[in-house]
């Protein structure tokens, strides 16, 4: 059962549209082509993994989708909004309410409590502090850290910190959550917990998630995988196909 894009797209609403983007980095005399002619569509409510070896351009693609960087050529639309047309404060608006990030190294404010960290985006969005607090507590409960709202990042394990970061990403009800190798700094078990949390959020809360990862375990929770290689999309696969292949491979080795 090969992946058929047309078949897959049926009945789905496009959230992110990436059109022929290229990105060149000038390093001294040399020009490095990080992305070459990438075209991609991400649908609402989908869980996507972007995979690929280092240097394949997956982080660059991630930055482009997140509005952190501008492509050399090509266009990116999020909900039909052209990212290249946006001014600095409009980008700030977008980053505050529509796109959230989960980072590899959590990037929590070390001097703030878990709750303060979660309420931060809501303060930037102009929410009343009391409402922000209520919602922050609810979100922490959702990620299973309701008891630890008063703890600072230093007093928490890596997995717990990442869960606080996910709660923070959910603060302003974003359309899209971008995860940059969310489990790379975690051990196997806590990594698994984070996977399950993201999967749960995607399935039950219909949150759209784009995840850049090296971690093959993440494949099992995602809907679709995009394999990048040398700045190009090598192949797109549904996770169900990969599951089947994996299963057959393990059988064979046995």
């Amino acid at each position, binding site marked *: 059962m090969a992946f058929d894009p047309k078949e897959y797209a049926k009945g789905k609403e496009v959230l992110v549209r990436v059109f022929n983007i290229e990105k060149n980095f000038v390093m001294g005399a040399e020009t490095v082509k990080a992305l070459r002619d990438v075209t991609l569509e991400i649908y609402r409510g989908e869980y996507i993994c972007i995979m690929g070896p280092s240097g394949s351009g997956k982080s660059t693609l991630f930055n482009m989708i997140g509005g952190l960087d501008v492509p050399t050529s090509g266009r990116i639309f999020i909900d039909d909004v052209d990212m290249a047309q946006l001014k600095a404060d409009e980008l700030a608006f977008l980053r505050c309410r529509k796109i959230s990030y989960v980072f590899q190294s959590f*990037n929590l404010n070390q001097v703030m409590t878990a709750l303060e960290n979660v309420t931060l985006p809501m303060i930037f969005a102009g929410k009343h502090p009391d409402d922000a607090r209520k919602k922050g507590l609810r979100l922490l409960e959702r990620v299973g850290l309701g008891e630890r709202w008063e703890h600072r990042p230093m007093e928490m394990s890596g997995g717990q910190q990442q869960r606080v970061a996910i709660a923070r990403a959910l603060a302003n009800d974003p359309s899209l959550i971008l995860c940059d190798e969310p489990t790379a700094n975690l051990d196997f078990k806590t990594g698994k917990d984070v996977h399950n949390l993201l999967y749960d959020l995607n399935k039950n809360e219909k949150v759209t998630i784009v995840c850049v990862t090296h971690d093959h375990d993440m494949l099992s929770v995602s809907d679709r995988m995009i394999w990048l290689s040398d700045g190009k999309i090598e192949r797109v696969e549904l996770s169900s196909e990969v599951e089947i292949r994996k299963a057959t491979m393990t059988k064979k080795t046995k």
Partner: protein
Amino acid sequence: MSNNNKITVSKQKELTFSETFDFCLSSIKHRFFRSILTLAVVVLAVAFFMYLLTDNVYRSSLRTGVGDEIKQARKSTVLLNILLTKPTQKEFELMLAKSSVNPELKKMLVSVLKSDDNKISEMAELARSKKRYLRFFKDMKIGQRKLLIGRLTGDNIFLNLIEKKNFEKFKDDLAPMGNLKLPGGYDSFKSYLTDYKNYIKKRNQLHKEWNEAISYLLKQSSDITGSRPLKEVLASDSPEDIKKVQEFYKIINNAGFNISQADYNGIIKEMKKGKLKESIILKLNKPEIRSEWRGIFKEKYKKISEKLRVLDNSRVIKLLKDDFSKEKLEMISRESRYEDELTDLEYKLDFGIARTKSGLSNKDIYLLVLSFIVCMVGIANAMLMSITERFREIATLKCLGATDMFILVQITIEAALQGVAGGILGVIIGLIITTLKDSLIFGTRLFEYFPVSGVGMAMVVSLVAGVLLSVFASIYPAWKAAKMAPMEAMRVE
């Protein structure tokens, strides 16, 4: 939890100042003392600023206080001198000139000379101008003086220049001497010269009248005291003499020397003290006392002024107990020490740097400006360092929706708060250091004339300077942080 509505993008709302301030307060309280370096620079700068200002305030307040004390202490001597000596023409002219700044003296001149206020004021002004012109002639080089006025001195200079021919020559001679500026210019000098003869006439008249008044006083005093000198009578304790002294006071006031009872009592007290001192010195100079003294103090306190200072030593009191009471000895030793102390303070205050009118010397201002520049660079550097450390944090804030303005304001507020904290600490340290140092030099006198308002002013100025310093120094680092790309948050150490 997911937002599935279509995206409509608008401008990100800026947080209000108070919201930003609250955010800074909550984040700074944990980080505050980590940036010790920046804080230390602010503290040092403010402490130094405070030191310079407060030192200056202390000195000027001491100068005024001690100056008044010295004036008061010397007043009775000056008064007695005026009453009992006939001034020469020159001395009288000086007195006239002084009266334009000393209202008490002017009042005395008016009433003694039975003249009116305006006339004396006019004469005083003329005397002052004369003093100024004489100084002008005195200050020039010998060759120049020789060319301009020859060997003439005093009145003769002016009398010579009254003639038109001489004045023209003087004017021509002076014109090429570019560095010499006639005070007030040629025209006012010329009009001064036209009035000069008149002035001399009037002055001589006044001088004569004054001397007559003094002669009358002297005659009256010798009538009262007989062959004994007046000073002795004034210092005497016998009831007869006291009566005479009161009589003399009436005579003085009748003659127009309006001396207040307090000043007169001051003179009497001074005379008594003088007499007591004299008799003590006489006693101390006796051979048997001198040898005893050597027995007590060996090689110390050989001079008479030194001896007077240690009169309250218990062994000295024992030595002199037959002639002088303990209280008197203590009083004299205290008085002589006090005088020494005043002279000492005067010396200490005037010693060292010549001060400009504003109170701070050029050297102080130079140091201030230099230290401010150095501190500003230091703070800016320290702030840059601390911001580089927080690169990822700031970039993360931007990823969460913070605008450039927010970052700029946040860092400036943090710097200002740091300026306030460093400023308060610096003010306290500066105040302590200055007070310690100056109390070592001036002793308890410092607290007698403690300038509360001046020190308060210095504190406010230093604090404001500290805050401004930190805010100015933070502008560049804050701008740099605000312009940072949010992509920096992706960096992994």
